[in-house]
C-alpha cells in the first residue's frame, strides 16, 4: 500500500511539472496595464534600436507595457518562430513581415487593418507606392518603415587595373564580370540559393526588360514571354560562364564579398553603405545603377520590412497605437533608424526631407540621385509563386536550361498555383 502512495506522489509531481511547463504565466493583463508582445528578428545595432524604442514607449505612457523579444535570425523567425507561434494561438501582438511572406499572413487573415489608426495627414505623408504594396481590398495591413533599394557596388581599384568602364548595359556587365574573374576574385557576387532574396535581386533585370510575373490584378501568369526568358538568360549566363560563383562563403546580403576583396562587383541594397564605410574604409568602392538591357528602362527593387499587428490579438488598438507611435508619428524616430542605425529610405516624404543632407553623403548620393526614381516595390507574391520563380532561376543557373524552357515550366506552375487558390 505504501508503494502505491509513493507512486501516486511521483505521478502527481510529474503532472505538476508537465503542467507548469505548458502553461504560460502571462495573462495579458495585470491590473490596469495591458501587456503586449512584440517579436522580431533583429540583431546588433537594429536590435538596440528596437529595444530602445520599446523602453521609451514603456516610459512615456503607463497604459501599455510592451515586451520585446528577438530571434536574431531572419530565417528562423519567418520560417519557424512565427508560424509555430500562430499555430498555437500564441502569435505575438506585434511582429514584422517582408514582401516575401506578407501575402501568406494576409491570406490567413492575421494582419489587422491599420487604416483607422493613422493620425491626420500621416497617411498622405507615406509614398503611395509603399502603402499600395501593403494594401489588400482597401485595407492597410502593415506599416512600412524602411525602403531598401538595390544597386551595383564595385571595386574601383580592380576596374582601373583592368582598364574597364563601369558597365551600363547587360552585355557590358557580363563582359566586365568575365574579365575581372580570376582564381581568387569572382567577377560578380550574386545570391546562389533559392529563396525570396534570390528573386529580389533578379527582379530589376526582369522589370528593366519589361517583363512581369503576374498580370495587373494577380490572376494570370505572365511568365512565358520573351522578355522574361531574356532576363532569365542573362542571369543564368553569369553562373554558366563562371563569372559568378556557384556558392558563396559570405552571405550574398553581406557586402563583405566585395569589401573583403573576393568579388569585384556585387548587387546589394542600401544597407551595405554603413558596412563599407565602417569596416572596409580602406577600399575604394563605387556604386552605380544596375545595368539595363539595350533599349530597356532603368529599374531597381525596393524591399524592406513592415510592422504588422496580429488581427487575433485582444488588444489590436493598443498594438496599432504603438506601431503608429514608433514610425507613423514624429519624424525623429523613423529618421534615426534609417540614417543612424542603418541606411535606407524612409517611406514618408516628410522624413526623407528632414534627413535631406544625410542622403547626399558619400555613396548615398548615387542612390538618391540616380537610383531612387527607378524604384519599384518588391511584389507581394504567395510563397509558392516565389518558389516557382526561384525554381526558374535555379534551372537557368545550374540546371542547364535556356531561359525560354525555364520560363515555360514556371509559367505552367504559377498558373496552376493561381488556379488552385481560387
Amino acid at each position, binding site marked *: 500500500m505504501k*508503494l*502505491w502512495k*509513493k*507512486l501516486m506522489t*511521483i*505521478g502527481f509531481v*510529474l503532472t505538476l511539472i*508537465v503542467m507548469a511547463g505548458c502553461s504560460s504565466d502571462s495573462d495579458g493583463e495585470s491590473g490596469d496595464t495591458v501587456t503586449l508582445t512584440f517579436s522580431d528578428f533583429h540583431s546588433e545595432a537594429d536590435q538596440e534600436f528596437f529595444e530602445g524604442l520599446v523602453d521609451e514607449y514603456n516610459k512615456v505612457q503607463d497604459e501599455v507595457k510592451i515586451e520585446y523579444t528577438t530571434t536574431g535570425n531572419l530565417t528562423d523567425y519567418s*520560417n*519557424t518562430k512565427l*508560424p*509555430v507561434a*500562430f*499555430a498555437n494561438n500564441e*502569435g505575438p501582438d506585434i511582429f514584422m513581415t517582408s514582401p516575401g511572406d506578407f501575402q*501568406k*499572413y494576409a*491570406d*490567413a*487573415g*492575421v494582419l489587422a487593418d491599420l487604416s483607422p489608426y493613422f493620425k491626420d495627414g500621416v497617411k498622405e505623408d507615406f509614398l503611395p507606392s509603399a502603402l499600395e504594396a501593403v494594401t489588400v481590398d482597401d485595407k492597410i495591413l502593415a506599416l512600412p518603415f524602411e525602403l531598401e533599394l538595390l544597386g551595383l557596388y564595385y571595386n574601383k581599384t580592380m576596374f582601373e587595373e583592368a582598364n574597364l568602364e563601369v558597365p551600363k548595359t547587360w552585355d557590358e556587365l557580363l563582359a566586365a564580370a568575365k574579365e575581372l574573374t580570376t*582564381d*581568387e576574385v*569572382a567577377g560578380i557576387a550574386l545570391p*546562389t*540559393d*533559392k*529563396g525570396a532574396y534570390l528573386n529580389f535581386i533578379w527582379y530589376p533585370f526582369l522589370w528593366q526588360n519589361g517583363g512581369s510575373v503576374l498580370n495587373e490584378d494577380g490572376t494570370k501568369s505572365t511568365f512565358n514571354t520573351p522578355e522574361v526568358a531574356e532576363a532569365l538568360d542573362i542571369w543564368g549566363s553569369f553562373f554558366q560562364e563562371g563569372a559568378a*560563383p*556557384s*556558392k558563396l*562563403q559570405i552571405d550574398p546580403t553581406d557586402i563583405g564579398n566585395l569589401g573583403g576583396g*573576393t568579388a569585384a562587383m556585387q548587387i546589394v541594397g542600401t544597407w551595405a553603405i554603413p558596412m563599407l564605410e565602417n569596416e572596409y574604409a580602406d577600399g575604394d568602392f563605387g556604386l552605380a545603377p544596375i545595368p539595363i538591357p539595350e533599349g530597356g528602362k532603368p529599374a531597381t527593387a525596393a524591399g524592406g520590412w513592415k510592422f504588422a499587428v496580429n488581427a487575433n490579438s485582444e488588444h489590436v488598438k493598443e498594438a496599432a497605437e504603438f506601431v503608429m507611435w514608433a514610425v507613423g508619428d514624429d519624424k525623429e524616430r523613423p529618421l534615426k533608424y534609417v540614417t543612424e542605425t542603418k541606411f535606407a529610405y524612409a517611406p514618408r516624404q516628410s522624413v526623407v526631407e528632414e534627413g535631406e543632407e544625410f542622403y547626399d553623403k558619400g555613396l548615398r548620393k548615387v542612390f538618391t540621385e540616380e537610383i531612387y526614381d527607378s524604384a519599384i516595390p518588391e511584389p507581394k507574391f504567395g*510563397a*509558392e509563386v516565389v*518558389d516557382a520563380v526561384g*525554381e526558374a532561376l*535555379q*534551372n537557368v*543557373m*545550374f*540546371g542547364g536550361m535556356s531561359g525560354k524552357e525555364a520560363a515555360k515550366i514556371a509559367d505552367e506552375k504559377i498558373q496552376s498555383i493561381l488556379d488552385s487558390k481560387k
Partner: protein
Amino acid sequence: MKRMKKNRRKRNEVVTAYAFLLPNLVGLTVFVFFPMIYAFYVSLHDWNALSPKVFIGFDNYIEMASDKRWWASVGRTFLFTLIYVPALYCLSLFFAVILNNLKQKYQSIARTMFLLPFAITSVISAVIWMFLYDPRNGVLNQFLSSLGFDKLEFLGSTNQALVSIVAVILWINIGYNMIIFMASIKEIPKDYYEAAKIDGASAWRAFRSITFPLLRGTSTFILIVTMIASFTVFDQIMVMTSGGPASSTEVSVLYIYKQAFEFLNMGYASALAVILFLIIFILSLAQLRLYTKKG
C-alpha cells in the same frame, strides 16, 4: 504463507519497475506518440497554421499522388540511402577490423580521432565543410589543383552536391558505428581465430567465415538504424544547400519542411510525413525479416 509473501514481493517489483519507467513513458507519450497521432489528424485537414483547420478527408493524399516534386524528392532520398548506407556500413566495418588489430595504445588514439567528428554539432560540421568545399578558395580545390586536377564545383553542381553531402555525413557517423562494431568484435571468442589459424586460414578467410557471420546481430542493428537516419536526413542539407542547386539535393524531409514552414501547408506536409513514416516503417520491417530469416 510463504507463497503469499513471494507473490507480494513479485508484485512490488513489478510496481517498482513501472515506477521507474513512468517518467520515460510520459515523455514518449507527450513528445512522440501524441505528435504522431496528431500529425495524422492534421493530415486530414487543410490548415495553414494561422487560421482554423478545415476537414477535407483524404484530399491531401490524393493531391500527393500527382505531386511530381514530392516523388522526385522521394527518389532522391532513395538515391541518398543507396549511396550512404552501404558506404557507411562497409567503411565503419573496415575501420573497425583494421583498428582492432592495432596495439591497444594506438587503438585508443585512433578511436578517439574517428569519434571526434561525431561530437561536433551537425550544423557546425556542415559549415566547416562548406568552407572546405568552396569552389574558389576551398582547401579541397587548392589540394586538387596542386596535384594537377581540375577544380570541382562540389556543392555548386547538380551532379556533385548530393555525393558531397553524403561524404560529410559519412565523416560524422563512421566513428560512432565503428565503435559499435569494435565492441562486438571484441565479444567474439579468441579461440575461433586460433583454431582458424591452425587450419591455415588467411586473414580474409577468417574475416569472412568468423567475424562477418558473428556480427550479424550488430550489422542488422546498424543497417536498420542507418537506413532510418538516411531517410530522415535534414540538418546538413538544410545548412549546406537548402535543397539546391536546382533542387538536386531536395530530399523528402526538406520538401516536407518547405511545405510546412515556407508555404504553410501544414495539412499537406503532415500527409507527406505520414507517407514517409509508412515508407520507413515498411522498409525497416522488410529489412528485419530479411536479416533474421537468413539465420
